[in-house]
């Protein structure tokens, strides 16, 4: 088996929590911090850390605003994040294809 696809997997996305964040954002233009936290069952601290990592990698755009005098944090995928996520999925599919008997 060619180990190349596995070695090419983006380490930033590969972590379970961050993959969850990107998966949810890939299906929705934007999601609030609370929606992500509740859907993924993460703690505030854990989610904040993962969001920061993804933001530093340029995969995530975070917008802070106010809605009815309450702070509202929303996250969205950047173009680079969408591309990296699509690439990650392609690599997973390659790994599966390689293992399938011809």
């Amino acid at each position, binding site marked *: 088996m060619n180990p190349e696809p596995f070695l090419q997997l983006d380490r930033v996305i590969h972590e379970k929590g961050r*993959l969850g964040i990107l*998966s949810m954002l890939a299906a929705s233009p934007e999601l609030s911090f*609370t929606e992500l936290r509740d859907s*993924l069952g993460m703690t505030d601290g854990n989610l904040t850390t993962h969001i920061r990592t993804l933001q530093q990698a340029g995969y995530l755009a975070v917008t802070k605003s106010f809605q009815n005098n309450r702070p509202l944090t929303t996250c969205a995928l950047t173009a680079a994040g969408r591309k990296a996520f699509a690439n990650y999925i392609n690599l997973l599919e390659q790994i599966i294809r390689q*293992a399938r008997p011809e």
Partner: protein
Amino acid sequence: MESNWAAEHLQVIRTLMERAALYRRALAPIMILNGVVGLAAAGLGWGLGVGSPPGFVLYWAAVSVIALTGSFLLVRRQALKESEPFWSPPTRRVTQAMLPALTAGLMIGALVLARAGLAPDTGRGLVRVLWLPLIWVVLYGCAFHAAGFFMPRGMRIFGWAFILGGCGLFAAGLPDWARPLDYAHGIMGFFFGGLHLAYGIYLYFTEHRRNAT
């Protein structure tokens, strides 16, 4: 095995993407509220003897405005409580999916109202428009079935209950023993009151159980 691990990862990604696209906000409270409003309105309409076609259309249009306003306030309250945007993408998708069928129902009601206003009163009351509540029931079912693609799976079954129930009653026609007034308000009460309330109670308990696990 790397391939097993990759397949599992893809499955997790797929599940999460589906979850992100689903609307889940305040479903049980909305259903219960609409059920209570529907049952109370049916009882009141029957008690007051709202029996003319224009009266029936206007009465139930007013009830739907009350139910819609209540639902809107519940959704907004939950959005504020959870610090989420009100007009979220799933909310937008559900609204867009429901809009065509609901608009059709509204237009048909308006048409009945306009025709009944122009035509002389024959004294036959609701007999002339007994098909209207059934049309509303079927269209409402279509609206929920369409929205069900962006909501938990049970919503589509809920939509089917309206569609099949409405069509079944169309086929059965008006029973001999029923007065048009009882029949029309009874249908509205059963579908828009009873079914909503029953499904709301079911959702309330199943959502609690899901949250507990």
